[in-house]
């Protein structure tokens, strides 16, 4: 995977369009990088947004010959640390040692993450419409599983278990596709 933009601008930085293209290209892996440290979607979104601002402001400092993803990861990691400094006592978060460990490992697996996300898209299409509907209801909004269960007229525990089974199924599917992709 190359990070070099096709429309490099003058100087050390990149052109605006190329920069946006890079940001768009790496948005999911960058989001996943933050998610692996913070987990909570609201927290991840907040840090992702702050990271986006910093990336934008520092666009001129990006070396077009370097890896955009790893440059962005460095900035995102700082934003995660800043976020945790403030939030540490109000919620359950991993401590600094584990966050650093997870960040280091997450930064090293961008291609694997991309492969997983690509495989997931195919795996989703293999689910029945009913299964997709369950995932959609549980993830599309911000409703808790209890709330979704109530709306569906189902027991929370039953839905919780079904959701867990669906995720297990998706994980298996992703693993199979990645292995078969690597083999081919």
């Amino acid at each position: 995977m190359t990070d070099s933009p096709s429309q490099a601008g003058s100087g050390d930085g990149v052109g605006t369009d190329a920069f946006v293209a890079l940001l768009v290209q790496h948005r999911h892996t960058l989001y996943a990088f933050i998610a692996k440290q913070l987990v909570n979607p609201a927290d991840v979104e907040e840090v992702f947004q702050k990271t986006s601002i910093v990336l934008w402001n520092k666009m001129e400092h990006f070396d077009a010959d370097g890896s955009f993803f790893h440059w962005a990861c460095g900035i995102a990691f700082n934003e995660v640390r800043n976020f945790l400094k403030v939030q540490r006592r109000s919620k359950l978060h991993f401590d600094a040692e584990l966050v650093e460990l997870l960040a280091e490992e997450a930064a090293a697996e961008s291609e694997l993450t991309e492969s997983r996300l690509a495989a997931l898209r195919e795996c989703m299409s293999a689910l029945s419409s009913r299964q997709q509907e369950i995932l959609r209801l549980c993830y599309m909004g911000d409703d808790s599983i209890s709330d979704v269960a109530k709306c569906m007229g189902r027991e929370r525990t039953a839905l919780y278990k079904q959701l867990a089974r669906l995720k297990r199924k998706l994980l298996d599917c992703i693993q199979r596709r990645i292995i078969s992709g690597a083999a081919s």
Partner: protein
Amino acid sequence: MSPEGLSELIDSLVAGEISSDDHDILQQTLKEDSSARDAFRERMDLEVGIQTWASAEVQASSSAAAPTNRSQHTDDGSSSTRTMLLGFAVAATIAMIVGIRLSTLSNDRGQEKSLLDPGRVSDRAQVVGVIRQQDDCEWKIRPVSHAGRLALGKLSLSKGVAELRFDSGTNVTLDAPCEIDVTSPDTAQLLAGNVFVDVTELSNGFTLSTPESRIIDEGTQYGVAVGDESTEVHVFDGRVVWVSATAGMDLQSGFQERIEAGEARSFLRSTPSKFKLVTLGKLQFVRRIEQRIRDSAKGSLIAYDGFENLVGLVRRGRSGLGWSGGWQAGGRGRGPSADVVNSPHDVIFGLDRSGRRHMSLAEGCDVRRMLESPMVLTSGNGVFLSILLSRQRSRTTNEIGSLQVTLEPDLPGRGRRRHQIVSFGVTTDGFPFINSGNIITRTASRIASDRTCLYVLKLAISNRSTFPSLRVYQPDEAVDHAEPSSWTVSGQAGSAEHPPASIRVLTGENSTWHVDELNVGNTWRSVTTQYQVGMN
């Protein structure tokens, strides 16, 4: 730990339902077991993938239902995105461009659910943005929400403050009680209450209507308050055009009044073509106050919090300047039992607090706010902090409660407390004190309850030591224009090894304290100027 056990813990974590004990177990497992971390990261990739898939489903459905009037952005980052990436509200814009879900209705997932009103969604499913709200918001009419995003429809906020962030680039802050009807991606009608409108550079314009008018922006930040008899418009940046709509008359042919930045008008609702000039800031819209504080300090102000917080809750970090985030629970790990409340209609040291707000801390409260960056302690210079403090008399006992304001370094855990730079406040028996170098020095005179006093701390720096002094002003005293030659109390020398990085406020038992006008600066004048030039 078995894979099944690990999976269950991750499930609980992802669902936001993990207990503190289980969180500790999971954390320890992840630290020690690399295969557990592999499984965790794989699982988080799955979570992000499903979130992205669900978000794409929503976007596809909403785009098909009702495209907005903005340029549509492609997934490949085409050149049309460039113009969208300018300006102040980059956060929401990039999130929109990259297609990541922006479902920040609240951090409280349970509360978010209560906003969803499926019956209304089916009628008007066009989504126009997101809504952010205080944790304690109460709705008389809940916002119409579609998949976590704000849809068209009426909403009525009965308590707290919420912000509507339109995809079209305009942010509208609602201050309860407030009733508003979101009518399109770039229009809304304010039916009652106060709003602050920030039309960012990204916006193609926003029109706020009231029952008697339209308010058309021209690159603007403005506040509108619809009352029973009149509607006030306060313009802070840019300008707006007020177009009145009298009965039976088309809006286009109505009376027009242009209102420039720094101006305010009050229009009679019964005759919206009649208005009178009012003083800008009478309603104390937050930006104006903070800007004046910043301007008057002339660059020497490091941080300020007047608690003029349209977002209300102190934790949100929206009030003041020079801070990183909002007020958080302090070292005891308790949630801050602090709140922003209306100030009394009084004048303190020349500062008219009518219509303004301050922070109220209940007994046993412990809150901290981080500075944007740690202060620089340079030998020969000083750090100054001023704050208005008022102890509320206990209704049940005659006992007095203490309060302590502490400058703390940026150190982890207990190190912050152990290496505190200096603290000052009032003892349980009512005497102002300084605690520095592990020695408490207190004044000889007691502070009476229910009196709002001004406390000004100076921390002089010399070589590697700090020398604190405290000046306490009683309500009937004039505040010195320059650094006083004598202080109420001076403390012991302390260490300048760690620069102050946060301000912490702790209250003792048996009393509630009111805290207002917190200033941190590099000069005496920067933290006392509002008491000398009449900032009201």
